[in-house]
């Protein structure tokens, strides 16, 4: 199941999470600030996956300079949508 959240717009991030994998966690980041914040973005993604008890996922991000809390929120929403329990 794939869940998507966010937008490719200024200060936002488009996140896609595919939980139908079995190879652990893989994170792909596209961002203008990748050199400056790439490590932190990956760390935040992994933390949210852990909080939501997701052990296998392929996550892609198209980031337009989103702050950390926005990235966390988008990943959270994408995971929930992937799991299918959207309200």
């Amino acid at each position: 199941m794939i869940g998507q959240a966010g937008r490719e717009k200024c200060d936002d991030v488009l996140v896609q999470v595919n939980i139908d994998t079995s190879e652990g966690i893989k994170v792909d980041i596209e961002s203008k600030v990748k050199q400056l914040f790439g490590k932190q973005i990956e760390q935040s993604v992994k933390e949210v996956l852990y909080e939501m008890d997701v052990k296998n996922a392929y996550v892609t991000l198209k980031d337009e300079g989103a702050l950390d809390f926005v990235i966390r929120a988008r990943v959270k929403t994408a995971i929930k949508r992937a799991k299918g329990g959207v309200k």
Partner: protein
Amino acid sequence: MEFIENAVGRKIPKYIEGVGVLKPYRGPFATKPEGRKYAPSKAYNTPGDNKILNNIREAIEKTGLKDGMTISFHHHLREGDYILNAVVDQIAKMGIKNITICASSLNKVHEPLIEHIKNGVITGLQTSGLRGKLAKEISTKNILGSPVIFRTHGGRTRAIEAGDVKIDVAFLGASACDKMGNMNGVDGKSAFGAIGYAMVDAEYADKVVAITDNLVEYPLYPISISQTLVDYVVIMDEIGNPSLISSGATRVTKNPLELKIAENAARAIIDSGYIKNGFSFQAGSGGSALAVVKFVKEYMEENNIVGSFASGGISSYMVNMLESGLFKALFDTQTFDCEAGSSLRRNHNHIEMSASTYANPHNKGCVAHQLDIMILSATEIDVNFNVNVMTGSTGIIMGAQGGHPDTAAGAKFTVVVAPLMRKRIPIVVDEVTTVVTPGETVDIVVTERGIAINPRRTDIIEKLSKSNLPIMTIEKLKNLAESFTGIPEKPEFDEEIVGIVEYRDGTIMDVIRKVKQK
């Protein structure tokens, strides 16, 4: 390579092959020049001289332009410039190589230089700044092979007058020119306003070529650059694209964030007490800067205050203030829009000035040193108030020194306005990537969320303590920025030096290294 630490804590090489000995920055007014100014070769003229040439090729031939020489250009045509590319193209076609370009600045329109650099036509660059793809190629691949020398507007004129750089041929774009080379920038279809950057070159270059698309009957008036300095006149179909040379009338921003920054800045300036009868003022051209001008204007009108002069970088907004009687005169070194250009033509108190008059610290008096208030922008500011306007946080060159260090040193009250962050990048940092303007010449930093006052300015700290402005230490401002963005990784650099940041007095403020590519 041996290094010496300068007064802002940056390590400067003692010597660079191809450039020579480097002197470290020691303070804004630490250098007192000695000796005589440089002078070009003597000239000779007789009645019946014909200066008009058919094309650029002829000019290159007649001026004796050869391998290894230095040529100069100016940026008063802004992104609409056709001249630089046309001249360099012709130089390349004629097989000439190893040319150094000494430009007052370079814009995105000058991207074709990339090819000429790769082909060895251009092997030296001296400019106020670099932008776009050319800047990126130099930053990441060092295509030039030797450091670009970045000078301030004032510093460039100092260097030319001192003979630090000897210009062999200067190519001057003029929107109106007569057969003897009298020229200006206010008449003609490609009018651009003040021709301030070119004036020093006209006086000190060995050969001077006027390039125009508007040959007028002799004599041209008004005369900005005199026939006594000009060797040849070349006529082109178009020297530039009018829609990119000048913009329409400048409008104040409606962006709430920029307005908030401007509001904070205006209140700080008002509370500082610097706005009073006879005060002088200059503002950069960024969004917040112009909005500050608007708030200052309102305050002046409410309190019947008349200033002495405003300088710049002049836009129609400033002209409006002049014509409303809020300032007695304008000093103009570059005219941004059409309305301001026509004001230059018709208002006697709208005064054209050379870049030397504007900002050269080694003449007998420059306008920048008469300023009371200066409003500047920044790409980065650090906890020592040092300002960067040249490189981004990733280390890539993407800006220009311009008159930033000149006016910061000269003004009694230097105000830097900037958002606390741009996208996720914090503007207030521990150490700027590149020091352009030293912290001791910067008085306050104004963002939308906080204002930091340089601890040196105890008088300003005292004056603003009674206001209810969000005053905080620069460290607190930095922490505030980082609380939103996180702390960015620092860019990685190679050993190769791709740029030297020369301060206005010829000493070196910082060096720019090649950005490591992954």
